[in-house]
């Protein structure tokens, strides 16, 4: 069973406008790997070259914020990729 990944609008250029996609990944790392295979380039905009979540990105599994990519994801979960920015 897959999870639902909700994609913030700054990343819709990668997903052909889709705001939500399904992914079979069992961890955030697997979900992001799956997204990268389907939407090349999207992962590096979210995760830096040191495998850290970028400063203005927040990842949630359901309502729990993930601090790294080891977080487990179960079938039926919703992963939120959120963009957080202040100022103009």
């Amino acid at each position, binding site marked *: 069973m897959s999870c639902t990944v909700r994609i*913030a609008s*700054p*990343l819709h250029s990668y997903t052909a406008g889709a705001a939500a996609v399904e992914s079979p990944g069992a961890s955030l790392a697997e979900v992001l790997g799956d997204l990268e295979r389907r939407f090349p380039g999207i992962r590096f905009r979210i995760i*830096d070259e040191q495998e850290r979540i970028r400063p203005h990105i927040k990842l949630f599994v359901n309502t729990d914020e993930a601090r790294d990519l080891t977080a487990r994801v179960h079938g039926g979960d919703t992963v939120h990729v959120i*963009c*957080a920015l202040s100022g103009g």
Partner: protein
Amino acid sequence: MASTLWLGTRKGLFALRADAQRRSWRLAGPQFLGHIIHHVAQDPRAPGVLLVAAKTGHLGPTVLRSADRGRSWREATRPPAFRRAAEGEAARAVERVFWLTPGAASEPGTWYAGSTPAGLFRSLDGGERWEPVAGFNDHPMRSQWVLNGTPDGEFLHSIQVDPRDPRHLYIGISIGGVFESTDGGADWTPLNEGCAADFLPDPNAAFGHDPHCVALHPANPDRLYQQNHCGIYRLDRPARRWERIGRSMPKKVGDIGFPIVLHPRDPDTAWVLPMDGQTVWPRTSIDGKPAVYRTRNAGRSWQRLDRGLPAHHAWFTVLRQAMCADRHERTGVYFGTTGGDVWASTNAGDSWRCIARHLPEIYSLSLAY
């Protein structure tokens, strides 16, 4: 010769297209509205190719590539990125791609990129895949060369390739200094002798300087000019000591600024746009009276050029990449302000007119033909 002036702005990519006489300019865009565009560069070896250094407020940095003069774009498949840090090592991540430079004519497909934090990257396939230049990024002296002291991080910029020898490279780092490689980037040495660094504990330090903009003259690659945080300089190689040619600027104006622009053919002619570097560094035009200064004798004297520019209450800031000159017989000189205006001169700076207003904060101006 039709010219396009590409404008990298804080909110997207714009283009100003001129007629053959450069009388009228038509604004096109924005493309990538909302994206932060730090730099745009045309490939002189393949003029249809343009590269753009981009990011957004939320997302990581990347490079975009067009093979059809900016009509369509594709993202690099491997954008500039540092290597993965070893256990216990400081982990660096590219925050922004700040500068793009095409390689030498003899190396089609080679490009260089500079980043914040200070990193150097190379592509051998026209900007599609980028690799870190380990000779600089992992140089044992790098952590000392680069003064990691500004909240916005250091900028690696002004990547210059000697057209006679593609292995001969220069880079500028704010803050860090000017560095030279003669082996294609495998090793580097500081090249800051003669440059002031008034802000350092040791003003005669070998590195730690703040070169705002460094330019190598294409017709005389032994000649470099530099607009530094502490003055305007010229260096004629093989000498290693910069000469402060800003000393001949009017005392009331001083010789602080961001950009320096070279004439496309005459190595003795350059333009600068002085800014206020006093007390708290307003970095605006001095007294609200913007003026370009031109030398025609390699910096022995400078001429104020302000005809057509606002006479007062114009508090311009012009960033280091936001001024350029074209290749026309009567040289066009252009600058863009952080207030979103573009000013043009088609007589080498003798007179100016505004050709675009109300754009987002302008980060860079780049000509394409």
